[in-house]
């Protein structure tokens, strides 16, 4: 399926999914929002994250399943996600495109907050 490149926010969300998947807890909306917040120091709109997740899933870049209802949250299920092969490919392409554009440029260290 042909698709356009990933948007910046989509990349953020996908990268958060990848980072969280290395741990052993559930990967779903709540920790994804926290992860983006923690690393970028930006506060993403929670609704935007959920909508992006739906969009990524529709594009086939992530897959989802419903977790077993755990005791820790009153027996309610979570909407867990993981990266698909297509997702990995899309991230790689995005990084490649970015690198191509950055190669040879120097804008200085900048003012990272």
């Amino acid at each position, binding site marked *: 399926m042909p698709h356009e490149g990933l948007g910046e926010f989509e990349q953020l969300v996908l990268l958060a999914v990848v980072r969280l998947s290395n741990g052993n807890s559930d990967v779903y909306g709540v920790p994804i929002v926290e992860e983006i917040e923690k690393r970028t120091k930006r506060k993403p709109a929670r609704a935007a994250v959920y909508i992006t997740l739906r969009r990524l899933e529709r594009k086939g870049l992530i897959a989802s399943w419903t977790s077993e209802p755990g005791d820790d949250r009153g027996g309610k*299920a979570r909407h867990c996600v993981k990266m698909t092969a297509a997702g990995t490919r899309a991230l790689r392409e995005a990084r490649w495109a970015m690198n191509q554009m950055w190669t040879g440029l120097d804008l200085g260290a900048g003012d990272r907050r």
Partner: protein
Amino acid sequence: MSVVRAPRLARRLLASALPDDAREYVTNELEEVFHQRHAAGGGLHARAWYWREALSFTLRFAIERIHEHATPDGGLALNGTGLPGMPSPPRRGFMRRTLESWMRDFTYAIRRLLRAPGFAFVTVLTLALAIGANTAIFSVVDAVLINPLSFPNADRLVLIRGLAPGTDLPGEFALSPEFYVSYRDQADKLESIGMFAGGQTTVRSPEQVDRLFVVQMTSTLFSTLGSKPVLGRLPIKEDDDKNAPVMVISHQLWRDWFKFRPDAIGKQLEVSGTRRTIIGVMAPDFRFPNANYSAWIRASIGDETKIVAGQLNFSLIGRMKPGVRPEDLAAQLAPIAKRLPERWGGGGARYLQLIEHHRPVVRPLRDQLVGEIERPLWILLGTVGVVLLIACANVANLFTVRAQGQRRAMAVRQALGAGRATLVRALMSEAILLAVLGGIAGVLIAWIGVPILVRAAPEGIPNLDNVRLNGFALAFTAGLSLFAACAFGLLPAIRLSSPVMVDDLRQGSRSVTLEGRFSRNGLVVLQTASALVLLVAAGLLGRSFIAMSRVDPGFSTKDIFTFQMAPQRPQLVDGPTWGAFHRGFMTRLAAIPGVQSVGFVNELPFDEGAGRSRFYTDRSGENPLGATLMAFTYSGGDYFKTMDIDVVKGRLFDQAEETVGSSSVIVSRAAAQILWPEEDPIGKRLRNADRTSWHNVIGVVDDVRLQNFRQQNPDPMIYFPMVGPEPRSWAVGTPAYVVKTPRMDSIASEVRAVLREYAPEAPMYRVFTMTQLADRAKAQLHFMMLLLAIAAGLAVVLGTVGIYGVLSYVVSRRTREIAVRMALGAKASAVRRMVVIQGARVTMIGVAVGIVIALAATRVLDTLLFGVDAFDAPTFAGMAALMMLIAFAASYIPARRASSVDPLQSLTIE
């Protein structure tokens, strides 16, 4: 596990906004974070957070759904496979599809309008002004004309009066107790009937004293009106049988004097010197005969067999049986009245003459109340309606011009297969959106404007205190907005979406299409004509106002302060004692620094009018049929000097005869003319037919207008001195004092101080300056003139914007043509002339149409006009010229722009 849950309403909102497949997990996960936050930061914090998130999710998911719907593969991918060639998801219901496509159109409309903020602002402002004005006036019309009465089945309430053409009774007159009893007993078309008379009188409690408007009434009045008290009871038949001195008070009096204490019931008040017991309190919306009245006292006719016929001082109010029309009732009452002398006898020759010519007048109570104001209000509503029409025409114009700019986009969409309905909807959504915004802003304007309008309104408009933006007015506004949307959205939408539009794409057409020009010019004609009609109307009222301001009422209104007071002391028993009291008071008033003269009159012009009676003269003799009906009053002190009423002949009352009493009398010029035509009135004699004493004319004074400035001829007047020939002839109790002083700003408090010292028990009331009374007499015309001037101004501004807009547009479309002309040698002045003439031609047609409409329309103003004809040629010509001038100015700016076209540049751009 915590039992705390997120806010219910927010949860509901969220659940309704989320798509089916996301609803459960999103709410679950949000709930999870809510609990964490609840535990960490407290309930209030967590709730606020949850609400914020719920709103954010609702909004973002709504937009996301529109996106999903708009992207063609979005729906397909939703079936979960993501594979092409799978069957599309089942078609959703018609309603939902329509709703969603409207939603999409509105989203696009918002985006488009955000990109054209100037257009959106002008459109919304134009509509808001027009809708605001309409809603405000409609709120007034609704309260005053549509629902002026708070009584149940008020359409069956009628006022019964009499008319006796062929006698000297002026117009309609009040009736007397024998009419009441006979109508009550014999008219079976009446369900019930009540009799009343009202006036201002002194009311005292142990703590308070004031002059209040009080109604004397039969106990049947309340049952006829169908009103109930909020506290206590109403007078009943037993009160009549016992002749109990009972009264009912208004809600306002209950508040002001009794602070809403329920023990007001049973308390006693002294009304006109008689102690009466309060038995009931009426509801706040009970106003009868109008909002000024604060007490209703039960009066009895006494022994019904001993009524003296002919005391024409009472109003009769009847409740007709269902289905009876006023004219039916009048037909039944007529023969009953003819038989009155048989039953009651007496009355004399005059009375028999009156009965012979008598015709009953039965008028709905509502008409009686709103009579004078009805037409002006409808005129105002019509006026703001015209403004709305102009505003819609303007916005339609703006829309057409704007839509022309989107022709290509439309044509492309059409070529790609968009149906006509889709295109119309896309264009209409913008119109509806602007109309709704205009409506909201309009309600805001009306909300601000209504209180201002009510404050500026002249006195005597019933139910004005109940004017507010109600649901009815809001519904009216909603209707107006929708009407506006259709008026300015649908036409351009339909035209632009027509199939021939596709040709545009091929031709890249730049010409001004004939059809478009036609409708645009039509709109300008409509605007010019409407604006001119309002201009002419405002002009006519303005001229009337000027004419009225030039009328000499016969007295001066400058630097005159007036008031009344009501003393109460046992020694005031007859003419001389009252006279000495007034004289003492006037001496003290005259001692106030700056006071030039002081006098009094029993009824002040422009305020209370004057009493009327029949007079014999030595010429007419004492034949009742030869007596002349004439206005009369009593004057004292330097009344004529203070009011600057000229002495034409003879002399005024002197101080000596004022104190001891005299049989002198002064007549006005017109009265002298009527009573003794062609003769010298000095030394002639006259007698009030109701009294026994004869009076000698000692002087003639100039005529004054008693009622208002509109009076064609001043009333003939007879002035008696404050003390009559006998001590018991009459006593002037509560006259209107007039004080001439240049120190208007401080006089009221100084007079109050003098009164507190001289007669501390006397309330002071009807405090005015003569200027205020004169302004009040012009108030209705002034109010109408002001409102029409505002409406006309609004119409002219909107009309000018319209002309300017159309010509600017035409110039911009013809830039290339103009450039070619100029390249071929046309002079700038010729180009300017071309554009101005084009504007002038359209305006001229508009002016012609406007004059024709105005000729037909200004006739409705005739009762308001004064000293000027409804077809006044100078006003018509002047306003037409003004309109042309404004149109010229409006077309000159685009003309300048056209003539400054640089041919080279505009041709190479192409």
